C-alpha cells in the first residue's frame, strides 16, 4: 500500500515497488503459463486466481485502490468461484489430454503468439512514455470519490448501460441454464414397456456395488465373473469418466478365501495359483489411473478379520 | 411546381407491376389485362411527353430536380432531350405489344402448381412492367448516380424473366432446357454485373474528381458539362480515360459490343420471344443511349481518344455478327447475332462523331427496336406453333400460313434494311456519317448490307419456302391477337421509312448539342454545291461533249 502511494506520486518507482514488481510479475507470468498448460481445469482455475490476486496487488501499486479491491472481491471472489462451480459440474477430475488434434495448430499458435508479443512490445517500446505525471492530485480527494465523480458525471450513460448489461446477462444465464420440462415425466410402467420394446437390459438397471468399505455411487457393481458393469453407475459420472473400479480386490479376497479353505482341508499344491492367476486378469477399467489408486488403497490383511 | 410528368411516366409502370403482382392467383386473365392497361397508360403518358417536348427548346426539358443524398451530392434529376424522348416513346410503344405477344407465355407454368401462392402469370407481367419502369427512368435520369442505380437494378427483373420463363420449344428434355435457361440467365447477370461494377468504380471516381476540382462533388450531368465548358473542371487525360473506359465497358457489355456479346445469343435463345424482344429492343438500348449521353458528354476528350479502337470493334461486331447469323441453325440465335451486327452499326454511328452518324444511330435505336420486335415476335409465333427453334424443322410454311410468312418476310426485309422501311434510313445515315469521316471503315461496313441480305433470305428460304414439311402442314395462320401485335409494328416500320422527318426533327437538336459538347464538326464536302435546290440540268451539246468523247479516247 505504501509503495502504491509512493508510485502514485513519483514518476519513477521506488525500489520496493521494483522488487515487488519483479517478484510478483514472475509469479504472475508463471501462473498464467500454468493456466494454459495444466491438464485439469481445476488447476488452471487456481493458477488463474493466483495471477489475478497478483494483478490486484499491481493495481494497488498503481494507485488504483478501488480497482484492486474490486479485483480481489469480484474476480477472485466471484468469477473464479463461478468457474470452479462449473468445473465441478463438468467434472473436477476430468483432465483433457494436451495432445493437439488440429493439424499445425500449435505451430501457428506459437508463431502468432511470438509475433504478436514481439510486435506489442515493440509498439510499447517505441511509444514515447517519458513523463509520468502520477495520480497524486487525481487521487487527492480519495480514489473512490474520484472514480465515483467520474462514473456519475462523465460516464453516467456507460454506467447505466453496463447496469442494463448485467441484468440482461443474469436473465440470459437463467434462461440458458434453466431447462423447461416440455413433456410429462414417464411413469415406471411406460419406462418398463419401453425397455421391453427395445429389448436391451429388460430388468431395471442394477444398483451400484456396495461393500463394507466402499459405499459410493461411483463404484460399479460386479458381474458374476467379477468384471465391473458400467450400467450400475450414474450416467453423469460415466460421462466424466469417474468410475472407481474395485473388482480387483474383490477377486483377491475370493482367492484368499479359497486358499484358506484348501489349507484347512489339507490339500496343498494342486490348483493353487490358478485362481490368483485368474484374479489378475480382470479389473482393467477404461480409466487406468483410477484403477491404480483404487487398487492400491486398501490392504487385504484387514479383510480377514 | 408543375406536374412531374417524367416521374409519372416511370412510376405508372412500377405501380402497374405492383398491381399485377397483387392480383390473386386464381384469376390470371385479370392480371394480364391489368398489366396491359398500365402499359397503355404509360404509352399515353409517353405520348404526352412527346407532345410537350419542344424540339427547338432547351437542351433538357420537363426537368425535375430534388436533393436526394445531400452528403454525396446525389440528386434526383430527371430531364429529357430529343434522344431520350424518342427512346422513351419506343419503350412505351413496344411494351404493350410485348405483353400482348406474351399473353400465353406464362400459362404452361400454371399447370404445375406447388401451392396456392404460386402465380407465374402475375409474376411474368409484373416483371415486364418493372423492367419498363426502370428503363424509362434510366432514359430520363440526368444524374449519373441515379442512372447507375436503375441501370443495375434492371438486371434483377431481367434475370428472373430469362431464368424463370424460358422458351420451352428447345426440342430438348425438360431438365436440359432448365439448365440451359439458368446458364443463360446467370451468364446475362454476371456479364452485366461485371460491367456495372466497373462502372460503379468509375462513378465513384467521377465523384472524387468533381469533388476535389469543384469543391463539392456532384453527379449531375449538366453541372459537369457546364463546368467543363466553363473550364472549372479539367480532368487529367489519364483519369478521364480511365473513367471513360469504366463507363464504356458497362455500356459495351449492355449494348453488346464484340467481344462482350456472347451473353446475348444465350439470353435471347433461351428466353421467350417477347422477353427476347425486351432484351434486345428495349434494355440493350440503354447501353447505346448511355454511350451518347454519358460517355461522350462527360468525357469528350477520352471519347475522341478511344474512337479508333471503338470503331474497329464496332466494325468487327457488324461483320462478325452477320457471319455468325449466317452460320446459325437456331432461329432465335440467328436474330440475336443479327442484333449484334446492328448494335455494331449503332456504335459505329455514335463514334463517327458526325451529325449523320449520331442522328442515324439514334434513329437506328428506334428502328432496330421496332424491326427486331416485329421479326422476333413473328418468329416466336412460328416457334410456338411448331414447338421447335431449329430452322431445319421448318419448310414451306408460306404455303400453309401466308400471312405469317408475309409478316415474317417484312420483318426480315426491315432487318436487312430495305429502302422504304425504317431501318434503311438509319443504316444509310450511319454509313454516310461514318464514310464522310472514315471512308475505309464506311466501305467495309457497307459490306454488312450484303451479309444481312444473306442471313435474312437464307432464314426465309429455309423456313418459309420449299415443299411443305409434314410437321407444318396443319399449322394455323396468325390469329387476331397476333395480328394485332404485328400489324401496328409493320405499319410503324413503313411510316417511319417513308416519313421519318418528325422523328428526325426531334432528334437532330440533341445530336447537334452532343456534337458541340464533343466539339466536332461535320467534315465539309470537297466541292460544296452552292445551290442544292433543283434547277434543270442540260449538258452542253456537241462541242462540249466532244472533249468528253476525246477524253474517252485518251
Amino acid at each position, binding site marked *: 500500500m505504501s509503495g502504491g502511494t509512493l508510485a502514485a506520486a513519483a514518476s519513477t518507482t521506488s525500489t520496493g515497488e521494483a522488487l515487488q514488481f519483479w517478484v510478483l510479475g514472475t509469479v504472475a507470468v508463471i501462473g498464467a503459463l500454468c493456466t494454459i498448460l495444466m491438464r485439469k481445469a481445476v488447476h488452471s482455475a487456481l493458477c488463474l486466481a493466483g495471477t489475478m490476486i497478483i494483478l490486484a496487488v499491481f493495481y494497488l501499486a498503481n494507485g488504483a485502490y478501488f480497482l484492486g479491491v474490486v479485483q480481489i472481491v469480484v474476480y477472485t471472489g466471484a468469477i473464479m468461484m463461478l468457474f470452479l462451480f462449473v468445473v465441478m459440474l463438468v467434472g473436477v477430475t476430468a483432465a483433457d489430454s494436451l495432445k493437439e488434434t488440429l493439424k499445425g*495448430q500449435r505451430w*501457428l*499458435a506459437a508463431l*502468432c*503468439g511470438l*509475433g504478436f508479443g514481439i*510486435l506489442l512490445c515493440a509498439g510499447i517500446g*517505441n511509444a514515447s512514455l517519458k513523463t509520468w505525471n502520477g495520480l497524486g492530485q487525481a487521487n487527492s480527494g480519495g480514489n473512490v470519490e474520484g472514480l465515483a465523480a467520474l462514473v456519475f458525471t462523465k460516464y453516467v450513460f456507460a454506467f447505466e448501460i453496463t447496469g442494463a448489461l448485467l441484468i440482461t446477462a443474469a436473465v440470459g444465464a437463467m434462461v440458458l441454464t434453466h431447462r423447461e420440462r416440455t413433456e410429462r415425466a414417464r411413469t415406471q410402467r411406460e419406462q418398463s414397456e419401453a425397455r421391453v420394446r427395445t429389448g436391451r437390459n429388460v430388468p431395471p438397471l442394477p444398483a451400484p456395488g456396495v461393500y463394507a468399505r466402499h459405499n459410493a455411487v461411483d463404484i460399479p457393481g460386479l458381474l458374476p465373473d467379477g468384471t465391473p458393469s458400467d450400467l450400475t453407475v450414474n450416467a453423469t459420472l460415466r460421462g466424466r469418466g469417474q468410475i472407481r473400479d474395485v473388482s480387483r480386490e474383490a477377486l483377491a479376497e475370493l482367492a484368499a478365501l479359497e486358499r484358506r479353505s484348501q489349507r484347512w482341508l489339507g490339500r496343498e499344491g494342486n490348483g493353487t495359483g490358478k485362481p490368483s492367476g485368474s484374479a489378475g486378469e480382470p479389473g482393467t477399467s477404461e480409466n487406468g489411473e483410477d484403477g491404480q489408486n483404487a487398487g492400491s488403497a486398501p490392504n487385504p490383511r484387514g479383510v480377514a478379520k | 411546381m408543375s406536374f412531374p410528368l417524367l416521374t409519372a411516366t416511370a412510376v405508372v409502370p412500377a405501380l402497374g407491376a405492383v398491381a399485377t403482382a397483387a392480383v390473386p392467383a386464381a384469376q390470371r386473365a385479370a392480371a394480364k389485362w391489368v398489366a396491359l392497361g398500365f402499359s397503355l397508360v404509360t404509352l399515353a403518358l409517353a405520348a404526352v411527353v412527346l407532345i410537350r417536348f419542344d424540339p427547338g427548346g432547351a437542351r433538357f426539358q420537363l426537368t425535375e430536380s430534388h436533393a436526394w443524398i445531400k452528403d454525396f451530392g446525389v440528386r434526383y434529376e430527371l430531364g429529357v432531350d430529343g434522344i431520350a424522348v424518342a427512346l422513351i416513346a419506343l419503350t412505351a410503344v413496344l411494351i404493350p405489344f410485348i405483353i400482348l405477344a406474351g399473353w400465353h407465355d406464362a400459362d404452361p407454368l400454371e399447370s404445375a402448381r406447388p401451392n396456392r401462392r404460386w402465380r407465374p402469370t402475375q409474376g411474368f407481367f409484373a416483371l415486364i412492367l418493372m423492367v419498363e419502369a426502370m428503363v424509362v427512368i434510366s432514359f430520363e435520369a440526368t444524374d449519373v448516380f441515379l442512372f447507375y442505380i436503375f441501370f443495375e437494378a434492371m438486371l434483377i427483373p431481367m434475370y428472373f424473366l430469362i431464368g424463370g420463363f424460358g422458351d420451352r420449344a428447345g426440342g430438348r428434355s425438360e431438365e436440359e432446357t432448365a439448365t440451359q435457361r439458368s446458364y443463360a440467365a446467370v*451468364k446475362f447477370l*454476371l*456479364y452485366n454485373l461485371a460491367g456495372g461494377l466497373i462502372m460503379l468504380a468509375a462513378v465513384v471516381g467521377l465523384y472524387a474528381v468533381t469533388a476535389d476540382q469543384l469543391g463539392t462533388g456532384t453527379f449531375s450531368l449538366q453541372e459537369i458539362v457546364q463546368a467543363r465548358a466553363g473550364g472549372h473542371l479539367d480532368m487529367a487525360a489519364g483519369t478521364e480515360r480511365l473513367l471513360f473506359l469504366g463507363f464504356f465497358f458497362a455500356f459495351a457489355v449492355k449494348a453488346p459490343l464484340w467481344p462482350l*456479346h456472347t451473353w446475348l445469343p444465350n439470353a435471347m435463345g433461351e428466353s421467350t420471344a417477347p422477353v427476347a424482344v425486351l432484351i434486345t429492343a428495349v434494355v440493350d438500348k440503354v447501353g447505346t443511349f448511355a454511350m451518347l449521353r454519358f460517355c461522350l458528354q462527360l468525357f469528350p476528350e477520352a471519347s475522341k481518344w478511344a474512337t479508333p479502337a471503338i470503331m474497329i470493334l464496332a466494325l468487327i461486331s457488324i461483320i*462478325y455478327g452477320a457471319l*455468325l447469323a*449466317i*452460320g446459325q441453325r437456331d432461329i432465335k440465335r440467328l436474330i440475336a447475332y443479327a442484333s449484334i451486327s446492328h448494335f455494331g452499326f449503332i456504335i459505329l454511328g455514335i463514334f463517327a462523331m*458526325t*451529325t449523320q452518324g449520331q442522328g442515324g444511330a439514334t434513329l437506328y435505336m428506334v428502328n432496330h427496336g421496332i424491326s427486331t420486335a416485329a421479326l422476333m415476335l413473328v418468329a416466336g409465333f412460328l416457334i410456338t406453333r411448331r414447338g421447335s427453334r431449329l430452322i431445319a424443322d421448318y419448310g414451306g410454311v408460306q404455303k400453309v400460313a401466308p400471312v405469317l410468312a408475309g409478316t415474317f418476310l417484312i420483318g426480315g*426485309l426491315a432487318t436487312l434494311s*430495305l*429502302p*422504304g422501311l425504317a431501318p434503311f434510313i438509319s443504316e444509310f*445515315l450511319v454509313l*454516310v456519317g461514318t*464514310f464522310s469521316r472514315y*471512308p475505309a471503315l*464506311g466501305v467495309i461496313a457497307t459490306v454488312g*448490307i*450484303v451479309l444481312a*441480305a444473306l442471313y435474312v433470305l*437464307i432464314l426465309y*428460304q429455309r423456313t418459309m*419456302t*420449299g*415443299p411443305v414439311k409434314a410437321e407444318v402442314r396443319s399449322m394455323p395462320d396468325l390469329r387476331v391477337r397476333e395480328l394485332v401485335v404485328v400489324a401496328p409494328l409493320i405499319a410503324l416500320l413503313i411510316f417511319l421509312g417513308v*416519313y421519318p*422527318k418528325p422523328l*428526325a426533327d426531334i432528334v*437532330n437538336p440533341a445530336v447537334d448539342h452532343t456534337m458541340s459538347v464533343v466539339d466536332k464538326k*461535320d467534315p*465539309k*464536302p*470537297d*466541292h*460544296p*454545291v452552292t*445551290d*442544292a435546290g*433543283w*434547277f*434543270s*440540268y442540260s*449538258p452542253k*451539246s*456537241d462541242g462540249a*461533249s*466532244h472533249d468528253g*468523247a476525246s*477524253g474517252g*479516247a485518251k
Partner: protein
Amino acid sequence: MENLIGLLVAVPLLGAALLLCGGRRLDGKGHYIGTVLAAASFVIGAVLFADMLGRGEHDRALHSKVFSWIPVGGFRADVAFQLDQLSMTFVLLITGVGTLIHIYSIGYMEHDERRRRFFGYLNLFLAAMLLLVLADNYLLLYVGWEGVGLASYLLIGFWQHKPSAATAAKKAFIVNRVGDVGLSIAIMLMFTTFGTFTFAPVLTNADHAGEGKLTAIGLMLLLAACGKSAQVPLQSWLGDAMEGPTPVSALIHAATMVTAGVYLITRSGAIFNAAPDAQAAVVAVGAVTLLFGAIVGCAKDDIKKALAGSTMSQIGYMILAAGLGPIGYVFAIMHLVTHGFFKAGLFLGAGSVMHAMNDEVDMRKYGGLRKYMPITFVTFGLGYLAIIGFPGLSGFWSKDKIIEAAFAKGGTEGWILGGAALLGAAITAYYMTRVMLLTFFGEKRWGTTPSPEEPSAEPAAESAGAHAEPHPHESPSSMTIPMIVLAVGSVFAGGLFSVNDAFLKWLEPVTGHSHGDSPLSAAAVTAGTMVVLVIGVALAWAQYGRRPVPRTAPRGSLLTRAARRDLLQDDFNHVALVKPGQYLTRGLVYVDHKLVDGVVNGTAASVGGLSGRLRKLQNGYARTYAVSMFGGTAVLIAATLLMRAV
C-alpha cells in the same frame, strides 16, 4: 401537271397495297384491279407525254417536290420527282409494256390460285420502277432500285414451293445487293464530294470535282449497273431468274428492270464524261457481256435461258453504247426501248409456246410448231427479225447506230469495240435463228412425254398435266393481243424513232449528243452488219435447218459445254465465294462458341475451383478461426507500427 407525276407512282402502289392486303375477298377480281391500275398509270404517263410535247425543247422537264424525306444536318434527301425526256421515255416503256404484260398474265396465270398476289407483285414492281426513273436524287433512285429488286425477288420466287425457284430468287436478290453496295457507296462519295446527291447540282458541278473522285463514283455506279443489269461479273443471276413465271421474265428480266443499269449510267452521263477511266471500264464491261451473253445464248436448249442470254448480250450493247459517252447515250436508250418491245414480245411468245407445250422448256422437244400456233409464230418471228437487226425493223435502227457509235469512238479502241459489236451481231443472228428453227421449223419432236427429271420451269410440270400428250394450241386472245401489239412495236418503233432523228432530238437536251469521228461511213457499217447477219443466219441454218435435230443435246465442244454452264460463272462463284464463305461462317461459329465463350466460361470455372479450395479453410473449428483472428490482429499491429514508422 407536276402533281400527276406523284400520281404516276402512287397508282400502282395503291394497287399493290390493295391486292396484297386485300385478302381472299379480292381473289376474284384482283387481276382486273391490277391491270386497270397499270393501265391508269399508262394513261397518266400519256397525258404527261402530251403535255411535255406541248412545251419547248428546253423547258420540258418537270419537277415536283412531295415532301422533305431525311433532313439530318447537311444531309438532305427529299421525296421529289423529276420528269424529263429521259424519264418520260422510261415511263412510257414501263407502263406500256407493263400494262400489256398485265393483260397477258390474266390469261397466263389463269389457273394459279395465287394470281391476286402475282398481280400485286407486278403492281409493286411498276411502282418501284417508276420511282426509280422519276426520282430526282440518287437516294430516292436507290429506293426504287432496291424496290424493283424486291419485286423481282418476289416474282422469281413466286412458285416458292419449288426449291429451285426460291434459290434463284435469293441468288438474284443477293447478287443485286452486291451491286447496291456500289450504288450506296457512290451516293456516299457524292455526299462527301458535293454535299448533296440530287441529280441536277451533282451533274452540273461534276466536272469541278477531282477526276479521281469522279472515277471512283463512276466505277461504283458501274458496279451497281452490273448488278441490276446482269453484266459481267454479276450476271450469274439472270439465267436462274428464268425460274419465275414467263410474264415476269418478259417484263422485269427483259424489258424494264434489267435496263435500269443503262438508265443509271445515262443519267449520270456528266460524271462519266468527266471520268474517262470509268467510261473505259463501262465500255469494257459492255463489250465483254455482249459476247458472253451471246455465247451463252447459243448453247442453251432451254428456250427461256437462251432468251436470257440474248437479253444479257443486248444489254451489253446498251452499256457499251452508254459507255461511249455522248456519242452513244441516245442510241443506248433507243436500243433499250426497241429491245423492250421485241424482247418482251419474244418472251411472251416463248411463254405462249410453253403454255401450249405443257410448260416444256426444252427447245429440242419443240419443232414444227408454226402450223399449230400461227399467231405466236408470226409475232415471235417479227421479234426475231427485229432482234437480229433485219433491215427496216426496230433492232436494225438501234443496233446499227450502236455499232456505228462504237467505231466512232475512234482509235484502236474504236476498232476493237466495233469489232466486238459486229461479232456480237453475228452471234445474235446465229442463236436467234437457232431458237427460231428449233421451235417453229423442222418436224415435231414432242410426241413422247417429257421425263420429269428434265429441266422445267413451270410448276404444272409436276402436276399430272405434264405427262399427258401435249397438243399444241393457240393461246387465248388475252395472251395473243399483247404479243401482237409488241410485235407491231418491234417492227415500227425503230423506224419511227429514226425518222429524221426524232428520238435523237427528243433526248439530246438531257443526255447531250456528239457525232464523234467515225473512221467508217454509216453505210459501210450497215453493210458490215448485213454481212455478219447473213453469216450468222446461214451458220444456224446449216446446223439446225437442214438436218433433223436430236432430242437430246449432243455432248458438244468444250466451249459449248462451258457455255451450257453459263461459261462456268456459277462454278467460279461457288469455288471462289460460296465455299470459303461457308467454311468461314462455320469456323467463326466454332470460334465464338469455343474461344470467345470459352474464355468466359473458363474464368468462371477457375473462380469456382479456387473458391472450392478456399472453402477448405473454413473447417468449422472455432480455434482455427481464433488463430486467424490472432494472426490478423498481429498483422494489424504491424501495419499500424509501419504507418507510425513511415
